Each structure stands twice: as structure tokens, then as C-alpha cells.
């Protein structure tokens, strides 16, 4: 029988909890156990933020329970058997959790070593998107859905697609729920990729995020956004509108409502999704001052200049 493990987040902030939640999906693919996630309390394995008061309170208690594993996150703990540094890095988290689960919970018989059989998972569209980002962290993968196929070379940040880029649009639809994610040997990947069209990892992630209506940010309306760095729009295959919308985010913190006013709801969500997915977006909570939202206006002068130049206002 397959072992189930609950991973608990103790004292972690919202961003870290979201990261862990998405990593659970990847763990499901990679490890021999099944994972559940508890966002606000201990599990068999707990990641404890020692920089938070609630985390520090729980730490001693968890360490006294031998059936539980406590992982120190940040702060000081000389008695920590396991430790993660801040900020959370997907690769480190995955590696540590896999090591602990193998070490403590998987018997040789359960591990199925020596047996073949690729990991297969059915994923929802949103889960797929989040996992797609993580798949580029490491390993080589084949993603299949009927005739559609996507090969991913994580270490080299490359991918290959069977068919034109429009195939991705089909994958990005919410109906794209039945997907096989198979680990593939690097040599086999090279062979399979020979006849397929290459696409860079950032361009692939950008495409999915930009054309997917799912909001990765849980609460778009109550945050402000700003570019960390200008994206390479040419490499991403982005259009002229993306350049305009990104420009709005390039010099100041912009409320979602302001971006929405200029770009429309769908494009505003898509753009923020895409910029967040490639790591170029800074996010901060909205200040509780309604007067600061909705103040970006397409200035009268600039509108008239645009009109004279023959571009959209």
C-alpha cells in the first residue's frame, strides 16, 4: 500500500505556503509516496519558519516527537537535523523532502527499485502550469496528451513541441486535464526531439501564462506590481501590446485596477501571470488608500500624440 505523508507548514508566510503547495504536485510525480499539504499546522514532516513567533513556539514541541520530522527554515536552531535556507528554492525543497521520505517512510519493497514504470499523473490545467515551471528546474520530461507532445530538457532550459506553437493553446485550455508526465532519459529525449520544433523555456512559460486565464496570484486586486527587470520580449515572442503594458510597470508600483484599465481584465491577468512565471515581477500588498487606485489615466496629451502617430491610445 502506498504511504501517505502530510507536509505541514508552520509559521510560514503566504508566499512560502503557496510555493510549498505547488511543489507538492511535483513531489507526487517524483517520489514513491503520496503527499498531502497542511498549510497551517504540523504534519509527519513539518517545515518550521523559525523567524516567526508561531514557528518558534512549535519547534521545541515538534522536536520532542520522534515520529515527526521538523525542518528548520530560517532562524537559529542548533538542534536541527534538517534545514532549509531562505528564500525557498524548489530544487532544495524537493531534494530534501525526497531524501527524508526515502530515508524514513519507504521500504525497499515499496520503493519498487529495479522495476520500470513511468510516473503518470492526471492534472488540472492550473496544476499543469505550475508544474511546468518546476519541471524546468531539473530533469528531462515528456508530456503527452494524445497526439500532443512536449519534451522538456530542464537543465538546458529547452523544450520541443510536436506541431506548431498553436498546439500549446490546446494544452493551455482548462479542458486539458488528462496529461501524462513521463521522465525520459536524456539520450531518448535527444532522439525524440530531432524532428520537433524547439522553443526556449522562458518563451514556453510565457506563452502558457500569457494565454491562460488562470490567475496565479491569489488576490490580484489587493496588490501592486512593478517590473524587476525588463523582459526580453523578442525572445518571448511577445507582441507590441505587451511592450506597452510592461512599460506601465517599469517605473512605479501599479495597482491591478490601473493595469486592468489600460490592458483589459484578460490581458492584465495574463501579463501578470507571465511576468510572475518568469520571475520578473515584484509584488507588494496594496496600501489601504482607495484614492491611490485607478489613477493611471491615459493622459490627454499622450492620447493626442498617440492619435497623431497612428497608434492605439
Amino acid at each position, binding site marked *: 500500500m502506498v504511504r501517505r505523508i502530510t507536509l505541514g507548514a508552520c509559521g510560514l508566510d503566504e508566499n512560502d505556503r503557496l510555493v510549498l503547495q505547488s511543489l507538492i504536485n511535483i513531489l507526487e510525480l517524483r517520489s514513491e509516496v503520496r503527499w498531502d499539504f497542511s498549510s497551517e499546522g504540523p504534519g509527519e514532516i513539518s517545515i518550521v519558519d523559525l523567524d516567526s513567533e508561531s514557528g518558534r513556539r512549535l519547534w521545541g514541541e515538534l522536536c520532542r516527537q520522534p515520529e515527526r520530522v521538523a525542518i528548520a527554515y530560517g532562524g537559529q536552531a542548533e538542534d536541527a537535523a534538517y534545514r532549509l535556507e531562505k528564500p525557498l528554492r524548489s530544487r532544495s525543497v524537493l531534494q530534501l523532502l525526497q531524501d527524508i521520505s526515502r530515508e524514513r517512510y519507504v521500504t525497499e519493497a515499496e520503493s519498487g527499485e529495479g522495476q520500470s514504470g513511468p510516473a503518470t499523473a492526471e492534472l488540472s490545467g492550473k496544476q499543469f502550469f505550475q508544474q511546468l515551471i518546476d519541471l524546468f528546474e531539473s530533469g528531462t520530461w515528456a508530456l503527452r496528451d494524445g497526439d500532443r507532445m512536449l519534451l522538456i530538457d530542464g537543465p538546458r532550459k529547452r523544450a520541443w513541441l510536436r506541431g506548431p506553437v498553436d498546439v500549446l493553446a490546446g494544452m493551455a485550455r482548462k479542458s486539458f486535464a488528462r496529461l501524462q508526465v513521463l521522465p525520459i532519459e536524456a539520450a531518448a529525449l535527444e532522439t525524440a526531439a530531432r524532428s520537433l520544433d524547439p522553443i526556449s523555456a522562458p518563451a514556453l512559460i510565457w506563452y502558457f501564462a500569457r494565454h491562460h486565464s488562470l490567475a496565479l496570484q491569489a488576490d490580484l486586486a489587493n496588490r501592486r506590481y*512593478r*517590473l*524587476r*527587470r*525588463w*523582459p*526580453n*520580449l*523578442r*525572445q518571448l515572442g511577445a507582441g*507590441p501590446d505587451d*511592450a*506597452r*503594458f*510592461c*512599460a*506601465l*510597470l*517599469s*517605473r*512605479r508600483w*501599479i495597482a491591478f485596477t*490601473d493595469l486592468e484599465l489600460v490592458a483589459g481584465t484578460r490581458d492584465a491577468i495574463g501579463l501578470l501571470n507571465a511576468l510572475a512565471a518568469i520571475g520578473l515581477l515584484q509584488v507588494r500588498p496594496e496600501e489601504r488608500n482607495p484614492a491611490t487606485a485607478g*489613477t*493611471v*489615466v*491615459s*493622459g490627454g*496629451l*499622450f492620447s*493626442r*500624440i*498617440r*492619435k*497623431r*502617430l*497612428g*497608434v492605439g491610445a
Partner: protein
Amino acid sequence: MSELKFIFTGPPGVGKSTAIAAVSEFAPVVTDVLATDELSDIKAQTTAALDFGEITLDDGEKVRLYGTPGQRRFSFMWEILIEGGLGLVILVDNSRPDPLADLDIYLENFSGFIRDTGAVIGVTRMESHPQPDLDDFAAHLERHGLALPVLEVDIRRREDVVQLLDVLMMTCEPA
């Protein structure tokens, strides 16, 4: 009423005069002199004071397009030209020996103006000189704490220059 104007700057020979010509209603007024320094190898004449073009809005209001003289010996002109400007277009020639160092000159000299208004960077001649690429420029700007727009442009094409101005105006939108 103050003058409405956009400023184009960049190293000598990058094509500021050409960019202004691409969108100006009339052939730009160019104050060229014979190039007497290393520039004479690539360009017979260079802009000594400024380039000047113009577009007229529906209500008759004029928007001026000024190109700064590229050579640093004329940099005393830069401060005069930017006074009251709406924003800055920095053109960088990727075929020059160190385009990122060129960019630094303009980021440094126009830092106050960029902070107060906005700027966009147009990189030219990338088709023949792909390095540094757009990521290199963006990373370089990030090290300066900036996320200014960086676009590949062919300044002979009107639509590329229009896009630069359009993106520049987005960065300057009031908030």
C-alpha cells in the same frame, strides 16, 4: 506655455537624425558640421547643436523632437535641451565596441531627467551585431536599479520609432 518635446540621445552615428526624420512632419533641421575626430571614419558630418523635428496635434499644438549632439564635447547642450522635456529616447548602436558603456554615459548624464520623466532604450544594428543581447541590456539596467524598456529597433522604419515613443509615453503615464 512650456514647449512639449521628446529628446533623442545616443552616441555619434547611432541615427538620431534618422529617427527624428522617420516621424517628423518635415525634414528635420540638422545642424551638422564636418566630423574631425574618430567619427570621420564612419560619418562625414555630425550634429553640432541639435536636430529638430516636429509633429502637430489635432488642436494645432506642436510636439518637438530634439536630437542631442552625440559627441561628448557638446554635452553642455544636453542640459539645455532636456529642460521641460516629456521623456528621453536613448539610442544605442550595437556595432560599437562597448554598447553597455555607451549606455552608461547617457544613464549617468540624464539620470535626473530619467527619474523625473521616463526613458526608453532602442538598440540598433542588432541584426549584424547580436551581442550584447536584450537580456544583457536588461540585466545591466537592473544593476542600476532600473527596469527601463529595451527594444530592438531599425530607426529607418517609422513604426519602430513610433513604438519607441509609444512605449516611452506608457512609462511616463501619471500615477
